[in-house]
């Protein structure tokens, strides 16, 4: 009996790690480089913009209050740089959030009507019309806002001020021309309506038939079916859509510039003139006249806008990811 005490030596597994690139030939490899390059280009662009903003904003952020006050028009006396950017950030956020609040419910209503209520022919026509809204240039929206919408809304704002003046948003002296943040918010809402509607509609249309039928078979009415199957499924998509809209509202320049009578206050009075200003409109308004340190100051406000937009997008992603396991994606 030959004793072999030791167990048979484990055969070392043959390592056959081949990187995926090894199996690629010809155009497949080329295509890989093209797609990788396209992906890298996005990162490079983003980095370049961020770098530009930071470098050019730096002189303004480090300059003394006196220097800034001397160089920058409309720079408030004896204030820090933060106090200078603050009201602009406030005005930008206020306009965009108001626009979002106005647009999202309407957009969801249109999207649901197109996806689940309208007859097919009407749904198609409506879809086209909504997309057409997105094709109108913002300068046209600006003209329309000043020439048509502002006079039309003026009595509405007066009425709101008279009856709901106790509410901070509607307080103050109503501007007779209605070239105020309230009118801007309405125009912005119309401008972001198409993108929110289009994305929401696509999401609602993708609701699995299985879930819709599950709700119907339980005895759901059409609205109950929408509530139990469609809306929960579309939730993250609608949030993404709203954030896309918010992004556009934050950056909108021309329409705001043409409509708004600007001011530089932390003011909630959206019916009063000369209260708020948005960053984008401020830059567009003052850039042609600016030189030296004033340019750096404008770019610094641009950097603030960039940071806000980035934060909004990250927040949106966080919201969408939070309830992932309930999302229906599995």
């Amino acid at each position, binding site marked *: 009996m030959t004793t072999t005490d030791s167990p048979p030596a484990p055969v070392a597994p043959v390592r056959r790690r081949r990187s995926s690139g090894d199996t690629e030939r010809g155009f497949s490899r080329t295509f890989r480089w093209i797609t990788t390059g396209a992906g890298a280009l996005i990162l490079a662009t983003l980095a370049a913009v961020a770098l530009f903003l930071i470098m050019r904003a730096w002189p303004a952020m480090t300059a003394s209050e006196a220097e800034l006050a001397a160089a920058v028009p409309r720079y408030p006396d004896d204030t820090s740089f933060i106090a200078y950017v603050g009201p602009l950030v406030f005005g930008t956020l206020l306009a965009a959030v108001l626009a979002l609040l106005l647009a999202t419910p309407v957009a969801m209503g249109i999207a649901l009507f197109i996806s689940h209520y309208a007859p097919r022919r009407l749904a198609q026509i409506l879809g086209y019309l909504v997309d057409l809204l997105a094709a109108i240039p913002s300068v046209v929206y600006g003209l329309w806002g000043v020439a048509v919408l502002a006079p039309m809304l003026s009595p509405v704002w007066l009425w709101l001020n008279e009856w709901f003046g106790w509410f901070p948003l509607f307080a103050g002296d109503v501007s007779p021309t209605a070239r105020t943040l309230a009118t801007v918010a309405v125009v912005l809402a119309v401008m972001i309506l198409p993108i929110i509607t289009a994305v929401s509609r696509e999401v609602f249309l993708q609701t699995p038939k*299985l879930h819709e039928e599950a709700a119907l078979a*339980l005895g*759901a009415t059409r609205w109950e079916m929408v509530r139990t199957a469609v809306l929960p499924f579309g939730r993250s998509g609608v949030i993404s859509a709203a954030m896309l809209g918010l992004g556009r509202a934050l950056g909108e320049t021309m329409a705001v510039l043409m409509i708004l009578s600007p001011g530089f206050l932390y003011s909630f009075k959206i019916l009063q003139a000369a209260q708020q200003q948005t960053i984008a409109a401020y830059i567009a308004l003052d850039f042609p006249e600016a030189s030296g340190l004033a340019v750096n100051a404008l770019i610094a406000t641009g950097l603030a806008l960039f940071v806000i937009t980035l934060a909004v997008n990250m927040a949106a992603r966080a919201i969408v990811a939070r*309830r992932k396991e309930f999302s229906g994606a*599995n």
Partner: protein
Amino acid sequence: MAQRIDVKDVNIYYGDFRAVEGVSMTVDPKSVTAFIGPSGCGKSTFLRTLNRMHEVIPGAYVEGKVELEGVDLYGEDVDPVAVRRNIGMVFQRPNPFPTMSIRDNVLAGVKLNNRKISKSDAEDLVEASLRGANLWNEVKDRLDRPGSGLSGGQQQRLCIARAIAVKPQVVLMDEPCSALDPISTLAIEDLIQELKKDYTIVIVTHNMQQAARVSDRTAFFNIAGTGKPGRLIEMNDTATIFSSPAEKATEDYVSGRFG
């Protein structure tokens, strides 16, 4: 809690296409009735007319009478929503609401019915329904987890629990085991035997052994050819259908000569 269904001369259409024609039958209360037949013969379509789910598809409609205890479900003043609350349905693929927890899935139908239900009643109903679907012991510790995290067989039993939580008269099952493994299938078949004590059950199945195992009566559907409407060929006690059917086509089908 179980009622009979009388179907009188029903024709079923998808737009201009007549999918099923001339079906008349009686479904007995507290029994299991199986529909068998080759693919495309209209058995699922016919099943969906029994709770007015067929008309959900654009352009689809039904002619004829479907009576639940003598009341025509397609009568003028009958609300399809009310019909579906009375006649529950379980689908081919398990479809729990993915955004809801297991508990909320069971309660989904009850909440739709606009009934205010107290917390303790809700807990009791959840337990009773899940016990009724033989699922309680497997999920009682994770009622707040999403329903989509369960296995396929468990999801299907969750759907059955959801269907019986609203206390329907009839439960329709459209190939409930076709997406499941044999063990889960067995669990569902056992469950069907228990459910028939309280409910009228109608089940569509492609699996003839399953029809033979679970049903009391069997209806055989067939089509003459592609594009022709499906017809009810023969309906009888399951034992008779599988041993000595009256029609040649039925015999050919159940003996595996075609289909």
